[in-house]
C-alpha cells in the first residue's frame, strides 16, 4: 500500500522535453481507455463474463490477445470491460479525496484559531491512522463494493492533500496580491472569492490527474487483498487477485492487468506533471 502518498511533489522545473512524447502517449492511452470505458463493445471481441470452458487458460494469441482465464474468459475483453469501473473508482476516489482535502484544508487555513487547531489535529490523526486499517474497517462496516473502495481510498489519501490545500491557501492568503487587494479596501469575502480560493485551488487540477493514477493503484491493491469489487466483475484489481492463483501456469493473467494499471498510473502522473508545469509556469519569472 505504499501507493498512498501524503502530498504532491513540486512541479518539474523545466518542461520535461521539448516535444513531450510521454504526454502524447499518455493522452493517447487515456483516449483509448475512455473509449473502452464508454463503449467497451467497440474494442472487446467477447463479453466480460462469457464463460467458455473449452478454452480455459489459453496463452495470449491473436484470438485472445491477453490469453484466457480459468473459465475460458477472454482476458483482453475483461480488461476492456473493466475499464469503466476501474476508472470510475480512480476518478471517484480522487474526487472524494480532493473534496475532503479542500474542506479540511480550507477550514484549517481560514477558520478561527480553535477550529483550525482542531482540524489540523484531525488531519494529523487521519495521517497517523494506518491507511490500510481505515480501508479494512470501512470495508468491514459496509461490505466490499466499488463505492466502499472509492471512499476507503479517498479517505486514505485525503490528509496529504488536505495539508497541501492548507499550504496553498495560506500561501495565497499571505501573497502580495492579497495584501494589494486589502490595501485597495476590498472586503474579506471578495478577496477570498476572487483571489485566495481560485489561486489556491488552481493547482488541484493537476493534483487531480496525479491523484487518479495513485487512486487506481491503491484501489486495485484493495481488490488484490480481496477487499474490492466482487470477483466476476472485471475490475482490474479483481483481475489481478484472480490471476494470482494461476501465476506459475498462466502468468499472463497477472501480467496484463498489472501492466494496464501501471500504464494508466503512469499516464495520469505524466499528464498531471505536465499540467502542473503549465499551471505553475504562470507563477514563475
Amino acid at each position, binding site marked *: 500500500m505504499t501507493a498512498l502518498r501524503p502530498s504532491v511533489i513540486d512541479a518539474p522545473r523545466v518542461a520535461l522535453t521539448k516535444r513531450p512524447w510521454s504526454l502524447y502517449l499518455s493522452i493517447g492511452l487515456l483516449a483509448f481507455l475512455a473509449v473502452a470505458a464508454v463503449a467497451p463493445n467497440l474494442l472487446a471481441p467477447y463479453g466480460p*463474463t462469457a464463460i467458455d470452458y473449452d478454452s*480455459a487458460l489459453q496463452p495470449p494469441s491473436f484470438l485472445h490477445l491477453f490469453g484466457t482465464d480459468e473459465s475460458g474468459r477472454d482476458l483482453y475483453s475483461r480488461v476492456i470491460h473493466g475499464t469503466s469501473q476501474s476508472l470510475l473508482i480512480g476518478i471517484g476516489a480522487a474526487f472524494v479525496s480532493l473534496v475532503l482535502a479542500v474542506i479540511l484544508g480550507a477550514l484549517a487555513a481560514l477558520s478561527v484559531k480553535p477550529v483550525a487547531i482542531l482540524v489540523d489535529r484531525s488531519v494529523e490523526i487521519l495521517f497517523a491512522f494506518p491507511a490500510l486499517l481505515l480501508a479494512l474497517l470501512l470495508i468491514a462496516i459496509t461490505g466490499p463494493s466499488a463505492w466502499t473502495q472509492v471512499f476507503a481510498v479517498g479517505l486514505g489519501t485525503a490528509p496529504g492533500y488536505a495539508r497541501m490545500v492548507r499550504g496553498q491557501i495560506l500561501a495565497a492568503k499571505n501573497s502580495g496580491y492579497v495584501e494589494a487587494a486589502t490595501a485597495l479596501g476590498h472586503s474579506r469575502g471578495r478577496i477570498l472569492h476572487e483571489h485566495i480560493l481560485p489561486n489556491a485551488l488552481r493547482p488541484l487540477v493537476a493534483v487531480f490527474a496525479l491523484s487518479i493514477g495513485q487512486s487506481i493503484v491503491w484501489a486495485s491493491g484493495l481488490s488484490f487483498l480481496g477487499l474490492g469489487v466482487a*470477483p466476476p466483475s472485471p475490475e482490474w484489481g479483481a483481475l489481478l487477485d484472480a490471476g494470482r492463483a494461476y501465476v506459475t*501456469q498462466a502468468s499472463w493473467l497477472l501480467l496484463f492487468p498489472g501492466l494496464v494499471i501501471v500504464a494508466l498510473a503512469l499516464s495520469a502522473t505524466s499528464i498531471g506533471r505536465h499540467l502542473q508545469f503549465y499551471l505553475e509556469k504562470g507563477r514563475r519569472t
Partner: protein
Amino acid sequence: MSLPRSARLVAPLAIVIAASLAACASPAAGSGEGQRIDGGTIVYAPQQEPACVFGGWIEQAYISYNVLDSLVSLDENSQVVPWLAEKWEESDDGLSWTFTLKDGVGFTDGTPVNAEAVAYNFDYWVTGGNSTARVWLFGYYESAEVVDDLTVRINLSAPYPRLADNLTQGYFGIQSKDALETRSDEDNCSAPIGSGAFIVEEWNRGQNLVLVRNENYTSWPANALHEGPAYVEKVDWRFVADATTRVAALQSSEVDAIYDVPAVQWKTLDDGGYELERYVTAGRPQQLSFNTQIGPFTDERVRQAFAYSLDREQIVETIGQGVIPFEGNGGVSQSTPGYSQAAADRYTYDPEKAAELLDEAGWQLNADGVREKDGETLEVVLPYGAGSIVNADGAAILQGVKEQAEQVGFVVDLIPVPQAELFAGAYSTAEERDIAVGYWTAVTSGILYINWRPSTPESPNYSNQAFYDDEELGQLILDANSAADLDTQNELYQQAQEYIADHALAIGVYARLSTLAVAPNLHDVWQEHAQGGPTFYDAYLTE
C-alpha cells in the same frame, strides 16, 4: 487426473487417492528407496495459521491430531480402532458408552491419562472448550462418569450408535486435566498438553509452529504403521498463505510437504515426482442451500429450475482441472458412509426443463432475458465467505454457477463476504440471502442432523441453512442417528438425502478436498481418515 468413476460407488470408504498408484490408499505403501534418516525435521507448509492449537477449526483439528491423542482412531476402511481407548462398548439401550483406557499412558506434563481426565475433557468441550466438539455432542451428551481409574462412561439422552466414529475427529483430542485447570488460557491455547506423538515446542506467530517428538510416546493408534516414538525429531508447521508460494517452496526444497495443492499445479507436481495425496472429506460437501422460508426459492419448482440450469459437473471439472471431484449430492459427500448416489444424480444439466419449471411457476422471461413475476425480477442473493469458507477455486466455480443460472433468466448477486462480516453474522438470516454456500466436515452422515434438524423456539438450529423446518425430514434423520443396525442406518440416511434432493433443498457442487504434496525424500506421511489431516507420526526422511 480425474476420479475413477467406480470410486464413487465405494461410497462408504474414505477415499485416499495418491497420485502414484503405488501409494494408493494404503498407508503401509510408499516406503521409498534411500536410507532412512534417524530424526530430522520435516518442514510442512499448510495455508492457514489458527489462533490456537486446539479449537473448532479444521486447521486446529489437524494440528491437534499430531499433539493430542483421541480415544479412538479411524482406519482406512472407516473402521473405528483403538487409540487411547483399548476397547469400548455401547449399552444395549444405546444410552451409555463405556471406554476402557490403555494402562500406563501419561500426558507430557507427567499426569496420567485416566478416566477422570477423559471425563473432564468431555465436560470441557461442551462448556466452551471446543465449539465444534460441542455441536457434535449437542442433543445427545448427558454426562461423563468415572467408573474406575481406566474406565469412563458416557451417558447419552438418546442412542447415537456412531458416537465412536465422531470421536475420531481432532476436535476430541484429550488434554491433561491438570494443565487445563492450572495453566492459563494462553498456555493451553498455544501449547496444549496431551499425550500425543509430538509436543508443541515453540510457536513463532506469523511464521511457524515447531513440534518436537514425544520421546516417551506409548499410545499410538492401532492403525499406525510403527510403534514407539515418532521417527522424525521435529515437525515445522510453516504457515504459507499463498498457494503459489507453497508449491514453489516445495519445488525449491524449502519445505518437504505442503497442504492444499492448487488444482492447476496438480499435474506439474505429479510430473515432477512429488507424491500427491488427496482425501475427499466426508460430511457435507460444498453445496448450495436454498432459502425455503422467504423469497423465490420457497417455490420448489424454482429451486429445481435452478438445479437444472447448471452443468455443475462441467464447471467443476474445468475449474478443478479434474482434481476437484464433482459432487451432486447436497446432503453428504461421496466419501461419507450412507451416501446416496441417487440423490447425487437427481439433477443434470437441462436448461429446457429449467425454463419449463420457471414458466410453470409464473416467472416469465422479459426482453432482457431476465425472468419476472408480478413486476419483480428473479433476483437471488448468493453470499459466500470469500477466502474463508470458499477458496479461489470455489469462487471461480460459483462464477460459473452465476453465469449458467443467468442463462435461464435468474439474476444472481454473487457477494463475497469478508471474514469479519461473515462471522459477525452477516447474511445469516432468511431475510438476507437466497442461497447459502458451505461445507462441514464429518465422519458420518450424522452431519445431516446438524444441518437439517428443524428449528424450534426452544432450540433454534442456526445451522439449518435452508431454514427448512420439516418434521418428516427431521424424524428421518433422528431415526437414522439412533438406528442400531448399520445397514438400516445407512438406508435411512440415504432416504434423507433423497428427500433433500427431491425437494431441491440443497444441491451439491463439489466435494471438499484435503490434499497433500510430499517431496520424494519424505515417506509415510498419511492423511488421517476422519478429516484428512496430515499425520507425521510414521513419517521419515531419506537421504
